[in-house]
């Protein structure tokens, strides 16, 4: 197991390297630069600025310098926020982004697993059709639509929930959490239903019923453990997706997370910031997928034996 984890950790290096190089080339190929401004600076000034940020060097030298510094934990100064480093800016927003992701995943698991459970116990009935139809809707509506719609209903029409910030006003965490978590709740509901239906048809469940165990005990103790494996497997990509996808929600609700930097950096052509956030999100995606693989293989020995972790 340890060997497998180490092997996976080694794959981080080429993946991150490719991400840095591709991102570097793409941002330099994009028209417009970090120092383009409505009030045009003289060529002399632009030259000095390029010098100050090492942009006067050939691109391969820039990539080499960047990688050399990044390995030592120095992701460079932000172009947009002079006097601040990329690391510092990311660290200022990361706790909020992680908190948002945690609330959203809890919301998604909670709503998704319960709905999936209810649906799986009532196959073909109203309690199956209604939650599953709603979940399909949840998967289809992107957060960029759902967020403003929730703001309109709860924030503007009924004025019951705040539409701005994170942790500043009572209830301001509700709408962002729902907006970010809904799509995943819907996926979890469908995964739970599928997993449970498969398990509920197994021989050992029939045996448990024959032994006269209560239905609740059968479902909670025996069936759920196996039925929830698809959810666990999806948890890693889900958390990674939540973190990376948080930029939409952070922008809609003006939350001071790291996702907003991701968006702003792209618009500002803040090269070092784009690279820093890209590396962060790549690293987190790889890590959460790895963690969820480890957890899933513990829950299901067949995965471990068949080398599912690989």
């Amino acid at each position, binding site marked *: 197991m340890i060997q497998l984890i180490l092997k996976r950790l080694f794959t981080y290096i080429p993946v991150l390297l490719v991400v840095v190089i591709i991102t570097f080339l793409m941002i330099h190929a994009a028209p417009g630069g970090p120092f383009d401004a409505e009030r045009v600076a*003289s060529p002399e000034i632009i030259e000095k600025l390029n010098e100050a940020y090492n942009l006067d060097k050939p691109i391969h030298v820039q990539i080499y310098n960047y990688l050399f510094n990044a390995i030592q934990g120095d992701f460079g100064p932000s172009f947009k926020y*002079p*006097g601040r480093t990329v690391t510092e800016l990311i660290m200022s927003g990361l706790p909020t982004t992680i908190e948002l992701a945690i609330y959203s995943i809890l919301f998604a698991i909670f709503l998704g697993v319960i709905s999936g459970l209810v649906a799986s116990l009532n196959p073909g009935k109203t309690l199956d059709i209604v939650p599953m139809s709603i979940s399909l809707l949840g998967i289809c509506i992107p957060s960029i639509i759902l967020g403003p719609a929730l703001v309109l209903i709860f924030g503007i029409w009924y*004025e019951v929930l705040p*539409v*701005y910030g994170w942790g500043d006003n009572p209830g301001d*965490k509700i709408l962002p959490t729902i907006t970010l978590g809904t799509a995943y709740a819907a996926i979890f509901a469908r995964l739970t239903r599928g997993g449970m239906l498969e398990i509920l048809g197994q021989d050992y469940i029939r045996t448990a019923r024959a032994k006269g165990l209560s239905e609740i005990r059968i479902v909670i103790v025996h069936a759920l453990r196996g039925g929830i494996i698809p959810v666990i497997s999806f948890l890693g990509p889900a958390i990674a997706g939540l973190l990376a996808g948080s930029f939409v929600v952070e922008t809609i609700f*003006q939350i*001071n997370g790291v996702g907003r930097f991701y968006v702003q950096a792209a618009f500002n*052509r803040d090269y070092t910031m784009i690279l820093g956030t890209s590396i962060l999100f790549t690293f987190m995606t790889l890590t959460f997928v790895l963690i969820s693989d480890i957890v899933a293989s513990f829950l299901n020995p067949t995965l471990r034996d068949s080398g599912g972790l690989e």
Partner: protein
Amino acid sequence: MHWLIIFFLFLVGCSGNTDQKSKVDLYSEQGILLLGNGTEPSGIDPHIVTGVPEHKILLALLEGLVIFNPENNGVVPGVASKWMISEDGVTYTFIFNPEAKWTNGESVKPEHFVYSWERILSPELGAQYADMLYVIKNAESFHKGQIKDFSKVGVSVFENKLVVTLENPTPYFLNILTHYSTWPVHPETVEKFGGMTSRNNKWTRVNNFIGNGPFKLDSWEINKSLKVSRNDLYWGNDLNKINGIEFIPIDNELTQDRLFRSGGIHLANTVPTEKIIRYREERPKELVEHNYFGTYYYRINTNKFPLNDVNFRKALSLSIDRDLIVKSILKGNQKVSYSFTPPDENSYNPNTKLEFNPVKAKLLFKESGYDINNQPLEVLYNTSEGHQKIAQAIQEMWKKHLGLNVILTNVDWKVYLARETQGEFDISRAGWIGDYPDPFTFLDMMVTDRGNNKTGWSNAKYDEILNNAASKISAKKRYELYEEAEKILIDELPVIPLYTYTRTYLLSERVKNWQNNILDTNPYQFLSLE
């Protein structure tokens, strides 16, 4: 379902206090202003930053030689309590207020200004607003690296006074001094945290910042808020009734509007266009609308065919119904432009005209000999619903009155700037806000080869008139020359002015002494809260 309710209650519990009183009420009682401030400021170093949100913050933290007078767009004493101007209008001598202090208790000295101006003019710093100081003798040469010795620049200290020598008599020099690029920094602090010309200087951090403004920096949480509180050492505290200010960065105008209506901020710095009429009807006392020193215009690439033909450009302008644009699209009380420089009834009011005359337009269009079957021209604008609506209306007008086809291209801000600067456009939307209340801030832009000209247009007579105007001390004579230059501009139309900007925003009735002025600037020490 019960679990869901409990989960929501948990989130509510995690979300801070549960006080029911509106934040504006609560903070007004404490004398604290809550300001919606647009985008997150890129910094608070007056020699590096360039934006409006940064200006609003610096207005609290630093003070220049003079302070902008919000009542008449003039100036009142700041760090300098008095000043003398030589007869030829070229030498200014500033006498410092002995009570003007830095937040560490030290006095603000003339030497600090010399250091600060050397800093912004040092080419290594890469300051984008350094040209504000080009009116000072040899400042431009020093900034461009043509002279290395700063003592040759027209700023020096004599008997504890700051003596400034200008290139030409510049009657609006005092107005320039209200711009933050001319404000001082504390030399020892700047040196301690990175040195004079370092862009990565850490002197602006909360724990390091030393300012001389009416407020001192308390905290700065990125993308959340920047808080300042009353500076007890400020010389003008007798007037200052504000105890603190919280600048909240909100770049989404709908969110800002919602926050204002729920009592979260005293000022929302924009209003969504679609809500202006509703505010006018329902909450007129909170809606502020006033003229702004800015022009919205179309920039023409005069290096390209057929836009190099003045008749073609005139035809384009004559077929635009500006009244319709202002009344039906903008709806914000904007004024139709008849000149490039926004007019001021009390001072500069150029007698130029930009009429809507489709018949004349058609004639000139024919004269230009342009074949409408040519490849269509392109109108470039940065992505924004407002710009799009105007572009669509103008596209329709040109089609209707001239039979001319144009295509509309919207691109992201940086692409738009890059294409404009490189001259890769036919016609592009543009806007310009004056930096100080003098027509020169507009007219100078169109001088041959100025970085912000971007049209390729050049007129020797225009350049000469502006050059002559610079040496005139009398405002009347200067304005006469400006008007002459303005006529050339409107006759040749390298830019097609459309309308004069209006500032439209929401202001709580609790804020008193607010002055509506064309630079939209209100030093906070003149305000009060009820």
